[in-house]
Each structure stands twice: as structure tokens, then as C-alpha cells.
């Protein structure tokens, strides 16, 4: 290999480096080191005059490698590599010797040690650079289509943002209709938007959008590939209704003899085995739930088939698998509620319900047509107790976090209850009120000022049935009194927990979930809508409990990240990845097992490992695992490491 002509540039970083490291000494000791053709120091290398010095030296001394001795590569590696490239030097012949974070800062006050160490660091990097090979970034093709998983408000908003920008979206929803939990709500807090007015237009836009392919009643079967090039297969569950024949007359629905609890109405109403989950459901087409259908239970029932004038019922229909190619994926799988039975001391009773059940009671299209009635006997409840933080903020029996939305929707519930039953009394047991967004505090205060809702500061420890009343034992910590209320209805604001299927989905996508099952973001503050796997994004309550404004903001955030990705023609990938020497590899497969990015495959015929460079993150785990030394990291070979280690430890051996 031809010897490189290396230039070393030592930065003072004001006094950050020069206050501790004797930069003149460093230049003095480096300038005659083998391979070094030029060495100098300057106050700020990253500044325009600093960069000008580097350019001048490259030209005048004919340098073909530079070592920038300054701060961490995460700060200015990109700056200096760009500079190198603009002067015709291969950017991978520009290396950073970090003498700030790894030298001057930890050794502040000890100039002698720091100076000696700075010299060693630079020499070590010189040895590495001497052995660097010239590289060019890998070009990866980019499929400008997006898969969105989950069609709640988060998934729908992201899909619309992307589709409206001209890109195709594949939207997969596991239940028979899109809409998610928002479709179950009565109206929104603060704005009082009625849900059909809010969600239905969004849903119909999705259903009719030319850029959106909607797969309802479908699930993600499998994923392979990487950013820009994912291959996904989607399982379309058999609906048992031939879509091409059905004209949505609804006759089948009435004919079905089965009555089972409606998921949409949260078990407060019933549905048939063939059903459309709710009035405004989209797609408006019936599905047969094979779990409850008598025909599939072995019975001879074919009532719906007989009722259907279109002959659309197809008991023999099978699941189908469709394949799609996409460049990016959004996970928007939403939330579920912690079960009411999760806290043992609260009676399991028809009149102890959760927040979404109360939403159904309040909803004009719900089982009581919007009248607030007790599930047990249909009477109007006159004393209603709302409990906040059920399962939330309770690390012993539930989850330790705050579910963020319940303080607000409980206020809404109290308001809507008072509007429905003006002479009734509402009580709210709370620990503290979290009303931290625009207009929220005023909204909650209104419930006390105008609606005379009684807020009691304390938790409830027991709910039990006493005749036609429910006894609620709570405390009011502000007076130090234990309280008993004879209630007609108790509404539990249960914790928001992740969709239970999210864990399995995350496993397929090779993304991470936290201890609860919420999807983990790449960085909670700086990269909140990305996952650590390139090309996979997240939106809405799949990540963390949040209300609609926050859900929509995160969905639009994820969409805009993808639009910015799609603004490129193709993707560039770092070439500093792992490579296998097929002559040396003995096919043991240890690298395949260690790779967190699933970038390595074993060729079944040749029995050698093969690295998909577009997926490889360059972490190096495989290279250190490989027992035969066949796997090497480009520009960080074992040889380079040993040279670096020899210099770094020379003082101690």
C-alpha cells in the first residue's frame, strides 16, 4: 500500500483543550512521526479560518489523509469529512482524534499527563489512518411507499399526511373497522366535538383516498428487509363475506341467531356472529366472527346465507396473504385499558364500569342512545362516583406511570353526566389534577365552579354492593376524614396500557418495547417519533398515553420524518460495515446469532456468512465474535485495533 501523506491539525477549542493540553508540545512531538507530512495547531479548527488552514495545507503539502485532533466525532466528523471530500481527499481518510472528551476534560489540571495522552491518541489514530482503505458511501434504493400499522387516529392522521403528499400508503387494521378507540368516545373534552363529526370525515377520507390501500381485518404476517426496502406480508383474515357480491343491505345481520357481547360497546350491548361493529364503521361490510358463529361451531346454521339476496356469504373463504413493498413503516397500535377487575378491592359489579364504557353510555349511538342509565337495572343514576388513577400511579397493583388523559376525561364525564342528569351529584376522587395543556386547567376548574362537582382528594379503598347501592369507601385527606358514599354508578378511570399485541409485533419488526410494552423511541427527547431501527417510526398511544392533540402531533411528526426521507432520490449508507472473507469463513454462524440488526445470513449452499451491507450498522459485534477472523470491520480491522492498543498502552508495558 502506498504510504499516505498525513496532516495533523490540533485544535485548542479555546481553552477547552489548550487550557489542559500543551498544544505546541503536541505538534512538536507529532510532526516527525512516520507518515506525518504536516502538523499545526489553531484556536478553533471548526471555524471558517480554521477550515481554510486545512484546505491550504492539503493543497500545498499534497496531503491525502487528515487527522483532526479536537472534540468528539459526533460533533464535527461530518464537517471535516465534507471538507476533505471538497479538496479531493477520500472522506474516509479523514479521522478524528478525540483529545477533548477523552483527554483534556477528564485530565483538567494535569497538563503533563494530558499532553502525553493527547500525543498517544494522535499517534494511535495515525496508525489507524495509515491502514484505512478508500471508501465510497453505499447507494441503497428507496421505495417511496409506507406501511402504517393500526388505523386509530394516529395511524389515520399519519396515513393522510403521507397520502396527501403524493405517496402511496398501505394501512393495516386488525379489527373490522378503522377508527380505533376514538370512534367509541362520546365527545372530546375542552372542545366538545361530537365524535361522528370528528372521526367520520377522517375515516371516509381514508376509505376513498386514491393513494391509500386499506386492509381492514388484517394483520402483519412477516417483515423482512431494511430502510427503503421492506418486504411485508399481510394476512387478510377471512370475513366469510364475498366483498364483490355484498351490497351492504344488512339483511344478514338481522338473521343471525347468535348474541354475543359487542367489543365496540364494551360489553354493554350485544352483536350477532355476523356483524358490522358500529353504525359508522368503515369499511361498511359485515364479517363473520368464526369464534362465535354456530356454523363454524359445528352447527348446521346458515341463517345469514339464506337471508343474503346476493349470495355473498362464503363459509369456505380462507385467509389470504398479500405481499407489499414499502420504504418506511409507522407503528400506531394504540392502547387498551387496564381491567376493572385489576384492583381486587373494587367489586366486580355491573354498575362498576370503566371510562370507555361510560363513553358508550354517553354516546347517542350507544346502547342507551346517549341516556346515562345503570347497566344493572336501566335506572337513571343519581349519585355517580368517579375514581381517578385506577391502576395508574400504583406500582404495587398496576403501573407506576400517570396515564395523562384521565384527569381530563373524568372532568368531561362529570360535565356530560351533569348535563344528562342535572339534579344528580357527581363525586371525583383524585390524587392530584394534571391539567397541563392549553385551556385544560380552566376546563377542570369549571366543573367545580359551574357544575358543582365535588372533588375529594384521596383514593378509594373499597367498593361493595349494599342492596341497590354501591358503597364506596374513600378518604378526604384534606379534612382527614374517611368517607362513605352510597353510589348508584361508579366509573373507574383505569390506566391506559399498550395494546397487548404490540410486543409480538415489535418482535417481528425488530424494534424495542419498554417494560410495559410501549414502543420505545430512539431518543425520548431528541428523536421521539423514530425507533432505533432505521425506517421504522411510531405514532400515538402505541408509544405512551396521550390525548388526541398529542396523538395527532406525534402522527404528523412521524409522517414528516418519512416525507423528509422520501425527499431524497436514493439512500446513502455508511460503507464502514462488516465484510466476510469467504475463503476464511467456516460457516459456524456465530455472527448471525450476535447481530442485533439481523444483517447477516448464512449461504445455505456455500456455507459462508454474507453481510447485507445496507442493514449492517457497523457496530462490530460480529467481527469480535468470529472465531476464525473471517469477519472484519472495514477501516476498523483487527490489525488496526491492535496497532491502536499497542500505542495506547505502550506506557504501561
Amino acid at each position: 500500500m502506498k504510504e499516505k501523506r498525513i496532516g495533523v491539525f490540533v485544535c485548542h477549542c479555546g481553552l477547552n483543550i489548550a487550557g489542559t493540553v500543551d498544544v505546541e508540545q503536541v505538534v512538536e512531538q507529532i510532526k516527525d512521526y512516520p507518515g506525518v507530512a504536516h502538523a499545526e495547531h489553531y484556536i478553533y479548527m471548526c471555524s471558517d479560518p480554521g477550515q481554510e488552514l486545512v484546505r491550504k495545507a492539503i493543497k500545498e503539502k499534497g496531503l491525502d489523509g487528515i487527522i483532526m485532533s479536537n472534540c468528539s466525532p459526533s460533533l464535527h466528523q461530518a464537517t471535516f469529512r465534507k471538507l476533505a471530500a471538497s479538496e479531493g481527499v477520500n472522506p474516509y481518510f479523514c479521522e478524528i482524534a478525540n483529545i477533548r472528551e477523552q483527554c483534556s476534560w477528564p485530565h483538567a489540571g494535569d497538563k503533563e499527563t494530558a499532553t502525553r495522552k493527547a500525543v498517544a491518541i494522535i499517534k494511535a489514530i495515525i496508525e489507524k489512518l495509515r491502514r484505512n482503505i478508500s471508501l465510497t458511501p453505499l447507494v441503497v434504493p428507496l421505495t417511496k411507499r409506507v406501511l402504517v400499522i393500526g388505523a386509530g387516529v394516529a395511524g389515520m392522521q399519519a396515513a393522510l399526511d403521507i397520502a396527501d403528499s403524493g405517496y402511496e400508503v398501505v394501512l393495516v387494521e386488525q379489527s373490522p373497522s378503522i377508527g380505533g378507540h376514538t370512534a367509541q368516545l362520546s365527545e372530546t373534552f375542552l372542545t366538545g366535538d361530537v365524535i361522528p363529526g370528528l372521526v367520520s370525515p377522517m375515516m371516509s377520507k381514508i376509505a376513498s383516498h386514491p393513494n391509500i390501500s386499506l386492509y381492514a381485518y388484517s394483520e402483519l404476517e412477516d417483515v423482512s428487509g431494511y430502510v427503503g426496502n421492506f418486504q411485508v406480508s399481510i394476512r387478510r383474515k377471512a370475513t366469510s363475506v364475498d366483498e364483490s357480491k355484498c351490497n351492504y343491505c344488512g339483511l344478514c345481520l338481522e338473521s343471525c341467531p347468535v348474541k354475543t357481547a359487542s367489543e365496540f360497546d364494551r360489553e354493554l350491548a350485544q352483536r350477532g356472529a355476523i356483524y358490522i361493529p358500529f353504525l359508522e364503521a368503515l369499511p361498511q361490510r359485515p364479517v363473520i366472527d368464526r369464534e362465535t358463529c354456530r356454523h363454524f361451531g359445528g352447527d348446521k346454521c346458515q341463517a345469514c346465507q339464506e337471508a343474503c339476496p346476493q349470495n355473498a356469504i362464503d363459509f369456505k373463504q380462507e385467509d389470504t396473504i398479500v405481499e407489499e413493498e414499502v420504504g418506511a413503516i409507522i407503528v400506531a397500535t394504540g392502547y387498551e385499558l387496564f381491567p376493572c377487575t385489576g384492583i381486587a378491592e373494587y367489586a366486580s359489579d355491573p354498575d362498576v364500569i370503566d371510562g370507555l364504557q361510560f363513553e358508550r353510555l354517553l354516546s347517542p349511538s350507544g346502547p342507551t342512545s346517549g341516556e346515562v342509565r345503570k347497566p344493572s337495572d336501566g335506572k337513571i343514576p343519581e349519585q355517580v362516583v368517579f375514581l381517578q388513577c385506577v391502576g395508574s400511579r400504583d406500582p404495587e397493583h398496576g403501573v407506576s406511570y400517570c396515564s395523562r388523559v384521565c384527569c381530563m376525561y373524568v372532568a368531561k364525564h362529570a360535565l356530560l353526566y351533569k348535563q344528562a342528569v342535572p339534579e344528580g351529584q357527581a363525586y371525583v376522587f383524585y390524587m392530584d389534577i394534571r391539567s397541563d395543556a392549553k385551556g385544560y386547567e380552566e376546563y377542570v376548574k369549571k366543573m367545580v365552579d359551574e357544575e358543582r362537582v365535588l372533588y375529594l382528594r384521596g383514593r378509594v379503598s373499597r367498593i361493595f354492593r349494599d342492596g341497590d347501592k354501591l358503597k364506596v369507601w374513600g378518604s378526604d385527606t384534606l379534612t382527614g376524614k374517611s368517607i362513605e358514599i352510597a353510589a348508584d354508578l361508579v366509573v373507574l378511570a383505569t390506566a391506559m396500557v399498550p395494546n397487548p399485541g404490540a410486543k409480538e409485533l415489535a418482535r417481528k419488526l425488530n424494534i424495542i418495547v419498554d417494560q410495559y410494552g410501549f414502543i420505545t423511541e430512539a431518543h425520548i427527547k431528541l428523536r421521539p417519533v423514530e425507533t432505533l431501527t432505521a425506517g421504522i417510526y411510531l405514532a400515538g398511544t402505541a408509544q405512551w398515553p396521550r390525548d388526541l392533540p398529542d396523538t395527532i402531533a406525534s402522527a404528523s411528526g412521524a409522517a414528516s420524518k418519512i416525507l423528509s426521507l422520501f425527499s431524497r432520490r436514493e439512500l446513502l449508507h455508511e460503507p464502514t460495515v462488516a465484510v466476510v472473507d469467504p475463503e476464511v469463513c467456516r460457516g459456524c454462524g456465530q455472527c448471525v446469532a450476535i447481530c442485533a440488526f439481523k444483517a447477516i445470513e448464512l449461504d445455505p449452499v456455500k456455507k459462508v456468512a454474507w453481510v447485507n451491507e445496507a442493514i449492517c450498522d457497523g457496530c462490530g459485534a460480529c467481527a469480535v465474535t468470529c472465531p476464525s477472523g473471517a469477519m472484519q470491520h472495514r477501516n476498523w480491522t483487527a490489525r488496526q485495533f491492535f496497532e491502536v492498543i499497542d500505542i495506547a498502552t505502550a506506557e504501561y508495558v
Partner: protein
Amino acid sequence: MRIQISSRTLQSDFVKKVTEISGQDLLACNQCGKCSAGCPMCFAMDLLPNQIIRLAQLGLEEDIAASKTVWLCASCLTCTVRCPRGVDLGRVMEAIRLITLRKNIDYVGAAKIPKDTISELPQIALVSSFRKHTA
């Protein structure tokens, strides 16, 4: 009334002893009040269980000593199993009782119990009471 609190009262010997004997972190309690809501003895208490632990957090030993609450606590441990923060309040109550008893102060004097009461009470109740209420 205004009371003085300072780092000294917050780390008083009393606070240290309660913490040590009970093995509980008093500041783990966030005063949600669930213990008091379920306590079967609260009907007779002058201060609720959550108020006792609050007073202990603040190091207000005298206020606790003036209250009957810790002596009325039946050690049923309802509060302990329901506390969302995992505070074993039953042990805190016991620790406070022990601190008083170790000063050789009896809460119940055997001599002062009326004869009628003694004859009415089952033996086991008397034994438990002496165990719990006498030094």
C-alpha cells in the same frame, strides 16, 4: 398554629428510629389516602393512618404521641396490602408503638382495667392487648 420544620426535625432521632424499626421509607408515601379509606378502625381514630405517616415524615413526634391512632390500629394490614406505593404502614404503626413502649410507658395498665371488662373479655384478647400495649 405554625410549626417549625428544618433539616433537624426532618432527620430527628424519632424519624430515624421509625425508619429503622419499620424498615420502611417514609417518603415513599405520597399521601394518596388509600390506607385511611380502607382502615376498619378509622371510625374510632382521631387521626387517620395517612396523617400519622405524614406527621412521621415531618418528624412531629409529639402530635403522634397525642393521638390514639397507633394504639387503635388492629394490625390487620389492610393498608399494607392496598398501598399503591408498597409502604408497609402496619409496620410503621408497630414501630411507633414500640418507640413509646421502649420508654417503659404502658398504653394499657393491667390494674386499671375494670373487673367486669376482664371477666367479659376472652383470654386471647387480653393477652394480645398486653403484648401490644404494654412495655
